[in-house]
């Protein structure tokens, strides 16, 4: 990929960002290389999947419309995963992403919201997402709650509120300007708008994590929060911003899901938290924090969606799909571990 050894903090940092941010301390260049190897190994997995798909279903799989399909299906969870990658990189976790997507998509599709048309739906989805992220962030950064617990509580309450708002009903969207964005007529040069948003969020996420002070602070907080604090980073504020960012990504994803499914339902975003965490981890982001890779996360999402795609095209049962998904998570992590160990010598 177009990924230089940039996953670890770069050398030309201002003094405040200088502390050894990664777990590896002195081995920073090596770690940067490993991040690269991780992405390469995941690319290998993806290439193998493409090969399998191409051999088993040459007509249906190797097809422009299938590429559009895979990227579209990846776009919603992909945006959530970008936010999740930031949170995990900082040593946190956000279990509430699926519930926030559900709540935002439901709130943005009530009859009252739909009266305000396109802007009303977009505004509500994003603000509900950011609002939930704000609550998460305040509880964790200033309330001293463990991220696991705070976001678990948010998971329960956001899902509950989503159910309360819908009464279990499916809220069908009738605003055409929103619905049209999911239809082929709005594709730009054959690229669905949802995929463009996904690409945009990915690029911005990569730039922010690898090329800005904000990104370096995120890595520093995840590597060693105490060292980061001593170096002058406002750790609490940084954490607040990160959960806000995750909430923002959920809000955007909720809007994308509304476009994709043409409705809002309290069951939306079911188990997104697990999919997003799994994609980030097999991508090479450390669950303990201190290292994160946006490219790896996006590759992780693409691997999962491609697996689903291949299984569906071959008309295999969902039970088999789930078994394969589990096996591939284990295989990807094992491959990465062995490459890292070899690299360490």
């Amino acid at each position, binding site marked *: 990929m177009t990924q230089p050894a940039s996953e670890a903090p770069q050398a030309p940092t201002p003094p405040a960002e200088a502390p050894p941010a990664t777990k590896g301390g002195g081995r920073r260049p090596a770690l940067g290389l490993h991040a690269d190897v991780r992405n390469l190994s995941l690319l290998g997995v993806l290439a193998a999947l493409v090969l399998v798909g191409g051999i088993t279903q040459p007509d249906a799989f190797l097809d422009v419309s299938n590429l559009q399909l895979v990227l579209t299906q990846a776009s919603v969870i992909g945006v959530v995963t970008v936010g999740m990658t930031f949170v995990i990189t900082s040593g946190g976790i956000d279990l509430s992403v699926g519930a926030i997507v559900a709540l935002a998509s439901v709130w943005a599709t009530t009859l009252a919201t739909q009266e305000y048309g396109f802007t009303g739906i977009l505004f509500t989805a994003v603000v509900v997402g950011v609002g939930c992220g704000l609550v998460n962030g305040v509880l964790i950064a200033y309330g001293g709650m463990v991220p696991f617990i705070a976001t678990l509580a948010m998971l329960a309450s956001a899902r509950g509120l989503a159910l309360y708002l819908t009464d279990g009903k*499916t809220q069908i969207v009738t605003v055409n300007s929103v619905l049209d964005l999911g239809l082929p007529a709005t594709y730009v040069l054959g690229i669905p708008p949802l995929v463009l948003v996904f690409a945009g969020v990915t690029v911005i996420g990569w730039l922010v994590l690898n090329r800005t002070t904000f990104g370096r602070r995120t890595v520093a907080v995840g590597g060693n929060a105490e060292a980061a604090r001593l170096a002058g980073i406002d750790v609490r504020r940084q954490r607040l911003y990160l959960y806000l960012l995750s909430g923002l990504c959920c809000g955007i994803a909720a809007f994308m899901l509304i476009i994709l*499914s043409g409705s809002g339902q309290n069951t939306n975003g079911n188990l997104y938290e697990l999919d997003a965490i799994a994609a980030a981890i097999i991508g090479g982001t450390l669950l303990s924090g201190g290292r994160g890779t946006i490219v790896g996360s996006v590759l992780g999402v693409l691997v999962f969606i491609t697996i689903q795609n291949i299984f569906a095209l071959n008309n295999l049962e969902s039970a088999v799909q789930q078994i394969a998904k589990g096996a591939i998570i284990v295989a990807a992590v094992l491959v990465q571990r062995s490459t890292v160990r070899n690299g360490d010598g």
Partner: protein
Amino acid sequence: MPRIPVTSRRGLLFGAAAVSAGAALTACTSNEPKKAGTAATTAAAADDKPGTPVTIGFAGPQADHGWLNAINQNAKDRAAKYSEVTLEITEGSNDTAAQIGQIQTLINKKVDVLVILPADGKALTQVGLQAMKAGIPVINLDRVFASPQAYRCWIGGDNYGMGLNAGRYIGEQLKDKPDAKVVELAGIDNLELTRQRTQGFDDALKNYPNIKKVARQAAEFTVETGQAKMAQLLQAQKQFDALWNHDDDQGVGALRAIAQAGRDDFFMVGGAGSKSAMDAIKADNGVLKATVLYPPTMAASAIDLARALGQKKGVGGMSELEIPASITLYSAVVTKENVDEYLPTGFI
């Protein structure tokens, strides 16, 4: 630290923005405007004359799906029709332990009759037995207990028959077409009811040797999964003649995927009978041409049965002195021709 004032000013601005956004949002929670009576107003099965007072306890799963919501609504509306019936309805739960607790509370309250739609029939068998032993007859709604001793009467839908009728309808439409291809979008695969529906569908299609089921994928009764699985099915099958979708809620997503793929080379049959599906059948401007019912009105009938049981009566129109031990509902096929009749029972 010199940066403190900066932070607080920014914080203030941010707080103000958050508060105003919150104020704008609270105006957007309403779903009220277009709602009228949702549940069906069909005639009561037992006679309408008030009898001895009956307290009916009702325990169902969490209404997180349009159909389950319609179940609760049907039960409430029917109970409200009888002046002598008091309905004790519990907060729905999908958690087996929680639902057992709720039912035990109803037993302790000594309700006259219990209507139970278990989240999981097998897992709640014990509490059904417990109620029966305590002298409270149980009407088991839809998801059947493992032992017939756990209920006095079972009333529910016919999942096998639903698949059978969907298959028959599709078969009749395609019987003159050589090498016809059919696709199935199933519901949650680890539920027994999904397997029964598929079995019925397959059995019906066996009567039509010219028809072949070329693909089957399972969604999860949600719009999101319906869209995702249907999109994949459409990609895999470039041409087919008919589609059966098990559930109209996931059908919203399936129809969205069909629109996104720009396909109209087949017709679609839905399942369960939502209002949006019936509206689409009536409008007749898309691929959806029919839906096979799994009627939520069964909850209203269950209240009638519970009332008859509490008042020691039989069912009107039948000669027996008691209510039957089991009632399986028919899965009617709703098409453009008869949709007006069924539209009032369509759930949102």
